């Protein structure tokens, strides 16, 4: 009776294109023998009556128990609530900062949404500074809103950063791979030399290593690992490690 799961499960890891359909019969109501199943459709999947349609090209992914989504190599970011991003402050107006996050609209960030900020004690933020923040409001009909504090009012790693180091852009797919717990790319990279790394869900990555040269190496390695198998990557990293040490 695993109707819905079954048709999804056989496609996990496969490449799907917009317009592909998973059709299933809805369990008839009132029939006690079929338990209503739930699946959660993530990005790239949309329910349309008795079917689920794919609307982005990419690989079908699954997470226990019942989450499915399409993993795609998009470049343009669309804000989503709860995601952490790297923004660039573009203007100060009234009591908010306008922050470029790479979406279709600038996000607003209140002066008070920083740890320890009060009406009197305003945070020291300049135009062009980088902020790491989290979306509290992000939907298609409203201006997105960022905060740099968690629900307890703590910075928790968020706020203004990046006095030095380098900011660059990669695809959203690569960012997700970097942010995955136990990311192999980062593990491999850490073996070469130590560095600081901030990764925003919006495809922006900030890197700082001991020297300019090392920062550039890390940047270039991350950019090239986009289209590499893990094997290719490891051999490349090894060569760099041997060469630079």
């Amino acid at each position, binding site marked *: 009776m695993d109707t819905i799961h079954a048709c999804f499960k056989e496609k996990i890891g496969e*490449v799907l294109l917009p317009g592909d359909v998973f059709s299933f019969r809805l369990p008839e109501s009132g029939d006690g023998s079929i338990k209503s199943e739930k699946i959660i459709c993530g990005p790239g999947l949309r329910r349309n009556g008795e079917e689920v349609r794919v609307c982005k090209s990419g690989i079908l992914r699954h997470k226990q128990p019942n989450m499915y989504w399409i993993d795609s*190599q998009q470049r343009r970011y669309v804000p989503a609530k709860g995601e952490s991003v790297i923004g660039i402050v573009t203007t100060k107006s009234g009591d908010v900062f306008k922050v470029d996050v790479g*979406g279709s*609209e600038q996000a607003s960030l209140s002066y008070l949404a920083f740890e320890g900020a009060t009406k009197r004690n305003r945070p020291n933020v300049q135009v062009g500074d980088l902020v790491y923040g989290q979306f509290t409001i992000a939907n298609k009909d409203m201006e997105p809103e960022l905060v740099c504090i968690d629900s307890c009012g703590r910075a928790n790693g968020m706020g203004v950063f990046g006095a030095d180091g380098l900011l660059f852009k990669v695809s959203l797919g690569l960012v997700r791979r970097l942010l995955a717990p136990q990311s192999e790319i980062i593990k491999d990279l850490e073996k070469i030399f130590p560095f600081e790394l901030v990764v925003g869900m919006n495809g922006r990555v900030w890197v700082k290593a001991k020297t300019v040269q090392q920062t550039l190496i890390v940047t270039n390695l991350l950019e090239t690992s986009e289209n590499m198998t893990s094997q290719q990557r490891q051999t490349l990293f090894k060569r760099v490690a041997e060469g630079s040490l």
Partner: protein
Amino acid sequence: MTRMSATRGLCMRTMMELDQSCSVLREYGSEQSLLSKPDGSSTFVQGDTSILAGVYGPAEVKVSKEIYDRATVEVLIQPKMGLPGVRERAREQCVRETCEAALLLTLHPRSSVTVVLQVIHDDGSLLSCCLNAACMALMDAGLPMSHLFCGVTCAISKEGQIIIDPTARQEKECRALLTFAIDSAECNVLISSTTGSFSVQELQQCIAISQKASEQIFQFYRDSVKRRYSKIQ
């Protein structure tokens, strides 16, 4: 130059025409994500005809063009020589409305989707090549779409022979030229743009052929996306 390639194509075709029931799509290919600036880009090559497409979106929209409940789609076709004219405007309208029908625009209200198509070389079937390039670029940009689309051009020669994916020379010599856009969900006709006169029978035959050809192009889309994701596990 063009003469040579045309004759080459012609030889190929006359051989095929002996069969009388066969027609060929020219050699075709595509490259995705080849430009660094746009959110999505692709080239589509059909024989010598070649189009480069770049897509930005969902991005900021001008206040004057903002629509409160969906994204604004703009399509620009840049000719290789001179400035765009009325013919380009008509093509832009076709491509724009096809994109509008395929994209799920209500998911990104008050934003813009801009598709820029640059003609690299015109050797026939230009509109269908524009459509194919636009579709690949939209896919590359990861914009939500309800279905894919592709373009197929058919020419009807003076003898009544249907030639699929004609070259510029064949287009010039033909009696009628029909371009269709076919959707991937039901294989129905999204766009029909014709010149010259033809019978009802011929129209329906061309539609049927285009639907057949579209299957190959959709398979090509799938193969190229598969190839692209082949290194990610």
